[in-house]
């Protein structure tokens, strides 16, 4: 899709975003610091800003564009069921409500009063409400921030499956880089009202700039193997090595996990010589200084890339340099 959006938000801040993605991109993630204009971008796309102008080839004048707000904005005078019924009533086409209730884990919440819901419950209902409204495009503004990790993963996985199945395009704004890495096809990075970088997820993650070193993740993926009942974990193959995860994201037989550089340690020993379950043999590609006496080590094997954030002292003690073969270890998540 091609996107051009501009809006004068205030005297100091103008939104001027331009973006172009590949045709097969269905999920676009948007990230950036606070105040970068991410929410404004979504509001403009949702037609909520009369003074704005935008063109987006994902949308046509008749597109129904749903928006899940950061504050949920559930109607306080209706209970949960009432909110959902109202959304269904104005839906363009019928949707499978019970499938959506289940996927968003809202079934138990139907009788509840909106004002007594917790933050996470409210967000689930808000997402559910947007989906039963059968949008063509769905915009999400920090829509999972209040949910606990396991729940958030489950709901986002459902969202991806559901939207792919029904051809709903999604633009997702989030601070959770891990979620963006797992569930989006392409990412865009915003700053000061502009989109400064965009591209497929792998490309964006691999070309991380130094000021983002703290916030980046790596994605490791590969064919999923059979679930290990005895140990309750899922093994998968990555670069011909077996890695493990509790609940990886599996799509079309491919398992995907994200790895935070701060969780990665490097040693020179053999693959299985540690209690840390995941050991990934790879090569050091580059070392780059990072904040607070740390070093960001870029590791790779085959198509996969990984980062490790270790202390400068460790790096010099191990005499790490590009070309070394090491084992990157990260605990089971």
């Amino acid at each position, binding site marked *: 899709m091609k996107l051009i959006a501009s809006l004068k938000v205030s005297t100091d801040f103008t939104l001027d975003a331009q973006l172009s993605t590949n045709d097969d991109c269905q999920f676009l993630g948007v990230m950036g610091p606070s105040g970068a204009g991410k929410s404004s971008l979504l*509001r403009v796309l*949702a*037609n*909520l800003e009369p003074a704005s102008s935008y063109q987006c080839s994902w949308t046509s004048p008749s597109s*129904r*564009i*749903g*928006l899940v*707000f950061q*504050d949920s*904005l*559930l*109607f*306080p*005078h*209706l*209970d949960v069921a009432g909110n959902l019924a*109202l*959304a269904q009533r*104005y*839906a*363009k086409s019928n949707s499978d409500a019970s499938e959506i209730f289940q996927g968003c884990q809202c079934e138990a919440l139907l009788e509840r*009063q*909106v*004002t*007594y819901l917790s933050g996470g419950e409210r967000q689930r209902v808000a997402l559910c*409400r*947007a989906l039963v*409204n059968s949008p063509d495009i769905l915009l999400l503004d920090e829509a999972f921030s209040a949910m606990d990790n396991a729940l958030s993963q489950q709901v986002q996985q459902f969202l991806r499956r559901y939207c792919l199945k029904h051809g709903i395009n999604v633009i997702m704004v989030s601070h959770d880089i891990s979620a963006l890495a797992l569930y989006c096809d392409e990412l865009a990075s915003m700053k000061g009202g502009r989109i400064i970088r965009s591209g497929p997820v792998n490309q964006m993650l691999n070309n991380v700039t130094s000021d983002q070193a703290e916030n980046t993740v790596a994605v490791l993926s590969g064919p999923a193997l059979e679930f290990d009942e005895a140990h309750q974990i899922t093994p998968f193959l990555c670069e011909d090595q077996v890695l493990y995860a509790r609940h990886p994201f599996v799509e079309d037989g491919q398992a995907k996990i994200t790895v935070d550089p701060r969780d990665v340690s490097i040693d020179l020993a053999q693959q299985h010589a540690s209690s840390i379950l995941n050991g990934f043999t790879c090569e050091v590609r580059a070392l780059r200084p990072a904040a607070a006496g740390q070093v960001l080590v870029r590791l790779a094997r085959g198509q996969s890339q990984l980062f490790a954030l270790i202390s400068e002292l460790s790096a010099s003690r191990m005499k790490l340099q590009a070309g070394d073969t090491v084992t990157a270890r990260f605990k089971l998540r």
Partner: protein
Amino acid sequence: MSSVDDWQAVILTLQLALITGGLLLIFALPLAWWLAGWRSRMKTLVLAIVALPLVLPPTVLGFYLLLAFAPDSGIGEAWQWLTGEQLAFSFSALVLGSLLYSLPFAVQPLYTGFEQLDRRYLDAAATLGMSRIARYRHVVFPLIRPHLLIAFGLTVAHTIGEFGVVLMIGGNIPGETQVLSIALYDHVEALDYPRAHAMALALLGFSFVLLMALYQLSRKPRGAGA
């Protein structure tokens, strides 16, 4: 004066109160909505003007209405031309006077309601594909329902008690402009205290019942408000 006249006074008062209440709502709703959303330095000026009838002595208001409704002045003349009837001393004159007199009682509660209303709920409704009318119907109206009831009720109660304005522009015509408060005053002046008591009790009783019903109905819908 007979007790037939007394009953007429009661019915007339109710008619005046209900008609004024209904008309004022129609007029005050868009006014309050616009005021609540307006950002301008002129806003305090307009709010003060709207609140004027609260502090203006009713007889002052009534006196200027008397001048304004006279057949040789603008409004009176226009009315005569439009309807062929004299405006002063008619029920319509009372309605017009009451609209002005009770204006702040209708506008203030609605203004408060609209101010408290988070306009982002309308954004949410828009994203769900609701038309403007649907948004007013499903979001705005339910959320301001208590304020709406209070506006209507206060207007009605206030108009029932209206005296000073009617005294100036009514002309005390039984069945047309002799409302309850005027009839009561007449009875007191004529030393007919028993009838005065009866009417006062009726007035008091009715106002009390109305206000009670009002507050009962306007309890906030479950979960509304912060």
